C-alpha cells in the first residue's frame, strides 16, 4: 500500500505537467520526451509529497506541504491525489475548488472551479444514454453537433489588469463562444448556427444573435486546448457578443449543470444577490477531451465550469478592510458536495508569508505551492472533505483582515487598451496599445481583431509602431469584410520590444446602415468586440534576480523551462462607436412634407408645364350681342 501511494505523486506530476504543456504550448498535443524525463528525474518531489501524505494521516503539524508542485494558469488545480484513483470504477469524477486571492487594491478575487471528468466516447456509433455526473444536456450537444471542444463564457464587467493583475481565466466583456468541431463535420456553418441556437436555450442567453456577421475563423489565436491533432481552422468558429448582459437568468442554468446543484458543497455560496453586487463577474463552461493517463491510451471528456468574481472594497466591503465568506456570499460552508472526490478552498498567501499584509482565520497548517502565471504562489488549503476543517461550530467562515493600506497600480508584464480616436461621424481611427513592461525581454504577441462590417477599415492605413519606430508584424492574416455578410478579421504576430508601448492604428469609415438595420436604440452606438492578445510571456520568476534567496544555489543558475514563459491571453475593452443615425422621428415629418410638396408643388408645376396657353377673345358686350342677334335675324353677317 505504501508503495502504491508513493507512486501517486509521480502520476499526478505527469498529469499536471502534461496539462501545463498542452495549455502553455496550446498547439502541440504530443508529450515531449524531455518533459517526462524531468518528471521522472524528480524523486525529490515524490518524496516530499509522500512525506506530506504521511503527515496528513499523522495529524496536525506545523506546516504541511501539499503535493501540487506545479500548477498551471488555465488548467490549474486539477491535481489532487484523488483524481488518480487507479480504480476506474465509476468512470466519472467530480472535483470542486475555490481560490481566493486578496488583491493588491484591497478588493478580493474569488474563483470557483468545478470539474467533471468522464471516460466515455460521445462520438462512437452507440448512443450514450446513461449519465451520472456529467450533465445530459451538454452530453447531447457534444454528440449531436460533433463538438471536439467548446468554450463559452459570460462576463459582466472588465478585468482591471492594472489593479488586479492577471486573472486565472481571462474572458472578454459580454459573451464569448469558440468551438472546435470534429473533422467529420461536413457543413460547419450550418452546425455552428444550430449549435448557437441550442446553447442559447441552455444558457438563457442571446447566443442566437451569433450569425455570419460576427463569426470569424481565427487562423492562429485559438488553438485547441485538449488533445487532438487537427488544427485546421476550418473547423473552428469564434464569436463574441460584447453587448450581452449577464444576470441571474444565466447563472441559474449554469448552476443546474453541477452534480450537487446549489444544494451542497461550494456551490451554496453562489447566491446571485451577492455575486451580482460585485465589480466583475464571469462564468464559463469549457468542454474538451483530455488524456486519462500519461500514455494517453484512453481519453476522457472534461467539463470545467468556472466562475470568477471580484468584490469591490468600497462597494461591498463598505470600506472596511475585512472579508469573510459570509460577507462575500452571505453564506458559510458546512459540507463538501457529497459527490465530489475533492473539495478544497485555497487562499493565496504568497504576499503574506509572515501575516504582515492580512490576517487569516481560522488558521490552517496545510500549504500548497503552485506555478500560476509565471509566478510561484503559496496557498493555504482548507480541505472540505475533512470534518475538522469546520471546527466545533460545524461551519467554515473564512475571514481575511487587511492590515496594510491599498497600494499603487500594478505594472503587469503585458497589458493592453483600446480606444476610438477622432471626432465626427464620418471617419475614425482604432488605436490598440500593447504594453510590455518587462525590463529587458521582448516577446511576440498574437493580436486578433474582429471588427463588424459597418466600420469599413482602411487597411492601407494600418500602422504598428513601437518606441516611435515602425514595427513590422512577422505574420498578418487579414480577411476583408463583406457588407452584411462577414466581419473584418485581422490577425498579426507582433514582437513587443522590452519596456515599450506598441501602438496599432487603423482608420475606418462609418457606414450608413439601411434603416431597418439600426438597433432599437441607435443613438446608443454600436459595439465592436474586444481585441484578443495571446502571448507567451517571460516569467516573473526568471526576472527575479533575488531568486537565490530561498532556493539552493545549484538550482538557480539557468532558468528552468516551465518557469521561463507562460501563456497569457489579454482582452481589451470593447468599443462603443456611434454611426451616423437618422432622426427616427423624421419619417413622420418627411411623409407630411413630401405629401405637401407633391400635392401643392408638383401638382401646380405639372399644371403649369402641361397646360397650353392661348389668348382668349374678350367676350362681346351685351349691346354687341343684341346687335348680332338682330343682324342674324336680318341675314347680315355679325359684327
Amino acid at each position, binding site marked *: 500500500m505504501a508503495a502504491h501511494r508513493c507512486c501517486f505523486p509521480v502520476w499526478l506530476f505527469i498529469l499536471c505537467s502534461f496539462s501545463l504543456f498542452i495549455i502553455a504550448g496550446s498547439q502541440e498535443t504530443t508529450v515531449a520526451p524531455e518533459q517526462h524525463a524531468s518528471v521522472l528525474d524528480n524523486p525529490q518531489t515524490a518524496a516530499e509529497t509522500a512525506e506530506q501524505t504521511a503527515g496528513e494521516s499523522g495529524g496536525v503539524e506545523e506546516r504541511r506541504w501539499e503535493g501540487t508542485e506545479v500548477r498551471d494558469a488555465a488548467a490549474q488545480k486539477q491535481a489532487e491525489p484523488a483524481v488518480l484513483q487507479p480504480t476506474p470504477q465509476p468512470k466519472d469524477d467530480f472535483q470542486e475548488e475555490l481560490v481566493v486571492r486578496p488583491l493588491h487594491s484591497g478588493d478580493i478575487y474569488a474563483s470557483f472551479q468545478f470539474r467533471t471528468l468522464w471516460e466515455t466516447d460521445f462520438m462512437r456509433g452507440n448512443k450514450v444514454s446513461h449519465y451520472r455526473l456529467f450533465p445530459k444536456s451538454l452530453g447531447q450537444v457534444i454528440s449531436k453537433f460533433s463538438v471536439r471542444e467548446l468554450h463559452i463564457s459570460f462576463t*459582466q*464587467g*472588465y478585468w*482591471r489588469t*492594472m*489593479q488586479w493583475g492577471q486573472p486565472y481565466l481571462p474572458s472578454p*466583456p*459580454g459573451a464569448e463562444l469558440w468551438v472546435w468541431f470534429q473533422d467529420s463535420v461536413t457543413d460547419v456553418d450550418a452546425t455552428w448556427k444550430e449549435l448557437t441556437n441550442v446553447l442559447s436555450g441552455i444558457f438563457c442567453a442571446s447566443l442566437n444573435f451569433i450569425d455570419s456577421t460576427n463569426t470569424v475563423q481565427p487562423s492562429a489565436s485559438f488553438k485547441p486546448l485538449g488533445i487532438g491533432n487537427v488544427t485546421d481552422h476550418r473547423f473552428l468558429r469564434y464569436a463574441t457578443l*460584447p453587448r450581452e448582459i449577464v444576470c441571474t437568468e444565466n447563472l441559474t442554468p449554469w448552476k443546474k449543470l453541477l452534480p450537487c446543484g446549489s444544494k451542497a458543497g461550494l456551490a451554496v455560496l453562489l447566491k446571485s444577490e451577492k455575486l*451580482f*453586487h*460585485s*465589480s*466583475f*463577474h464571469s462564468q464559463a463552461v469549457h468542454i474538451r477531451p483530455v488524456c486519462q493517463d500519461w500514455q494517453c491510451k484512453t481519453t476522457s471528456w472534461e467539463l470545467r465550469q468556472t466562475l470568477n468574481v471580484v468584490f*469591490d*472594497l*468600497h*462597494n*461591498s466591503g*463598505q*470600506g472596511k478592510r475585512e472579508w469573510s465568506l459570509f460577507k462575500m456570499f452571505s453564506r458559510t460552508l458546512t459540507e463538501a458536495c457529497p459527490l465530489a472526490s475533492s473539495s478544497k478552498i485555497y487562499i493565496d498567501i504568497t504576499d503574506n508569508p509572515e501575516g504582515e499584509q492580512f490576517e487569516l482565520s481560522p488558521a490552517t497548517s496545510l500549504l500548497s505551492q503552485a506555478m500560476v502565471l509565471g509566478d510561484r504562489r503559496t496557498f493555504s488549503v482548507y480541505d472540505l472533505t475533512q470534518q475538522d476543517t469546520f471546527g466545533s461550530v460545524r461551519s467554515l467562515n473564512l475571514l481575511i483582515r487587511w492590515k496594510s493600506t491599498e497600494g*499603487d*497600480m500594478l505594472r503587469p508584464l503585458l497589458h493592453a*487598451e483600446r*480606444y*476610438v*480616436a*477622432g*471626432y*465626427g*461621424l464620418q471617419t475614425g*481611427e482604432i*488605436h490598440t496599445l500593447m504594453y510590455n513592461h518587462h525590463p529587458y525581454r521582448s516577446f511576440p504577441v498574437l493580436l486578433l481583431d474582429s471588427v463588424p462590417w459597418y466600420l469599413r477599415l482602411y487597411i492601407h492605413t494600418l500602422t504598428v509602431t513601437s518606441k516611435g519606430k515602425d514595427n513590422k508584424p512577422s505574420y498578418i492574416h487579414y480577411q476583408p469584410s463583406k457588407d452584411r455578410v462577414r466581419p473584418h478579421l485581422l490577425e498579426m504576430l507582433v514582437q513587443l520590444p522590452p519596456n515599450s508601448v506598441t501602438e496599432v492604428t487603423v482608420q475606418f469609415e462609418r457606414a450608413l446602415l439601411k434603416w431597418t438595420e439600426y438597433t432599437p*436604440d*441607435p*443613438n*446608443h*452606438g454600436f*459595439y465592436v468586440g474586444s481585441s484578443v492578445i495571446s502571448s507567451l510571456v517571460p516569467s516573473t520568476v526568471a526576472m527575479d534576480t533575488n531568486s537565490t534567496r530561498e532556493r539552493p544555489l545549484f538550482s538557480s543558475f539557468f532558468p528552468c523551462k516551465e518557469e521561463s514563459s507562460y501563456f497569457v491571453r489579454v482582452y481589451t*475593452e*470593447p*468599443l*462603443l*462607436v*456611434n454611426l451616423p*443615425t437618422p*432622426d427616427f422621428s423624421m419619417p413622420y415629418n418627411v411623409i407630411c412634407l413630401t405629401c405637401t410638396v407633391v400635392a401643392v408643388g408638383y*401638382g*401646380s408645376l405639372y*399644371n*403649369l408645364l402641361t*397646360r397650353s*396657353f392661348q389668348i382668349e377673345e374678350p367676350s362681346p358686350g351685351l349691346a354687341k350681342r343684341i346687335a348680332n342677334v338682330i343682324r342674324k335675324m336680318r341675314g347680315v353677317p355679325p359684327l
Partner: protein
Amino acid sequence: MGLLSDPNRRRALINLLTRLNAPICVVCYMAGVAWFMGLAFEPFTLRTYMSENAMGSTMVEERFPSGERAVATGREFAAHKKKVSGMPVEWLVKTMQARGLEVYTQRFSRTLPFPDENKERYMVKGTNVYGILRAPRAPRTEALVLSAPCTPGDNNNQAVGLLLGLAQYFRNQIYWAKDIIFLVNDHDLIGMQAWLEGYHHTNTTGMDWSPLQGRGGSIQAALSLELSSDVVTSMDLVLEGLNGQLPNLDLANLFYAFCQKIGVLCTIQGKLQRNDWDSVSGYSHAVQTMMLMVMKQASGRPWGDHGLFLRYHIEAATIKGINSFRQYKTDATTIGRLLEGMYRKLNNLLERLHQSYFFYLMPSLSHFVSIGYYMPAFGLLAVILLPGVLSVLTPLVISHLTGAALYMLPIRFQEMAVEHFPVSETEAVVLTAIAVYTAGLALPHNTHRLLSGEGTEQGWRVLKLVALLYLAVLLGCTALINFSLGFILALTLVPAAAFVTPHVPKVLSAFVLVILSPACTLLFSVFFFQELQEMPVSFLDGWLLYLSVISQGILDHFLYGSLVYPLIALLVYPCWLLFWNILFWK
C-alpha cells in the same frame, strides 16, 4: 396657382412687387425685428419639458451627506495650491487615489501666437489630473465627466473640494453603469482643450500634450463646476459653447428639474426667472435674458470649460455658483445633492442625449424658443435680399484678398509692429487688424484703377447681384449653425445691402455704411452687452474692452479653433466691402 398661370395676373403681381419693393422691404425688416422681439414674450414661447424618457422623472433619492467635508477639502486644496503656486498635482493624485479612483495625469504645453494680456499668459505649461471611477460591471464603454478648473488665485477651490467629495461618495455606490471621470484641469480652457484632444487623440490646434493612459470609452455628457464660495445664493447654468454650439436642451431641463426639486435658486445668464411676463418690466427682463444669450452665442467663444466638449458631440454645460447679497443661502451639501441627482439621471441614459432640441434660445430657464419659431425672424430679413436679385462682376477677388490680409497680417506683423511702434504684442495685433480693416475702405479707388474703362450702370448692378446672393447664402448658412451670430449680422448688413446704390448721397450713405459695418457692429455689441449686464461703461473703457474683445477673438481662433474670426475676416468683411464698392461706383 391660377395666379401664376394667368399671364395678366402674373404681370400685375410682378408690377405690384416692383412698385412696392421699397415698402415691402421696410415692412419685412420691421416684421423680422418685431418677430424676433416677440420671441421673448412668454405666451409665444414653449415651456421646457424633459424629452428623454430615461431621465423622465426626478425620482432618485439624493443622499450626498458630506458638503462640510468637501468644503474642508477645498480649503486643503487651496492651501496646497498656494504652496506650490499652481496646480498641486501630487496632492491631487494622492487624494484621488485615497478615494479609490484610478488616477492619471496629463502634461501639456502651448505657446500662444501672441501674449494674452487679459489672463497674463504666453507660454503655457500645465498638468491635468483626472481620476476615473470605474463603474462596477460595465466594460469601459461609456463615461460621464465632472470637471473643475484649477484657477489661479482664490477662485474655484470649493469646486475642486466638492468634486473630490462627490468622488468619494460616488465611489461607494454600486449603481454606476458608466465610468465617471473626475477632471481637474489646469489653465482652464487650454487645459481642457489639451485633455479633450488627448482623449480623442486628435490635434486640431497644434498643442503639445502627453498621451493619456486611462480612458473610459465614449463620453456621454459632461458638467463643469465653478464654485468660489462655501455657500451660494443661486446656481447659474452656462450653455453657450465653441462656435455658438449648444448642448442638447435636455441637459438644461435636467438642471432645471433638479433645482426645482431640491429647492435651489437657478438662473440662466445670471437672471432669475420672473412670473410677471405680462408686465413691461417682466417682458424686458425676458428680452434681456434672451439678448444676452444671443450676444454670447454670436460671439462664438466658449463661455465656460464645457464649451470645448461640444465639438466632440458630448453634451456639456457649466454650472456656476453665484454668491450675491440675498438672504437665502444654499450650502455645499445641497449643491452636492443637486449634482448627485443629475449624475444619477445621466447614468440612467440608455442612449446619447438626442431627443430634445439642439437649436434653441432661452428667454428664461423654464421657457425656450425652438428653431421653428426663431427662423421666420431671420427669414423675414433675408427675404429683402431676394428682390435685390433683380438688379449685375468685379472687385470680388480684391475684397477677398483684403479679407485674407485681415486674417493673416495681424499675427504675422506683430513683431514688426512692436519693433517700430511703442506698443505691446497684443495691442500690435489688434491695431494691425484695425489698420488693415480701415485700409480696406480705400479699396474702391484702387479697384477702379485696375478696372479698364468706366464702370457702367450695368456693372454695379451685376456687382450688387453677386453681393446680395453672397450675403444671402452667407447669412443663411451662419444662421443655421449659429442663429445668434447670423441674426446680429443680418440686422446690420441687410439694411446696408438693401439701400446701397451709386446714386444715393455719398457722404451720408458712406457714414451709414460704416456704422453698419461688421467692426462697428462689434463695437455696439460690446456696449450693448455691458448694458445688458447692467454694467454700463464709459466710451474709453468701452473702446479698451473692444480692443480686448478683438484680441480674445483672435486668440480663441488659434487656441480652440473658434470660427468667428475667420468668418468675419474672410467672408463677412469682403462681402461688406462689395457694398462699399457699389457706393463709390463711377
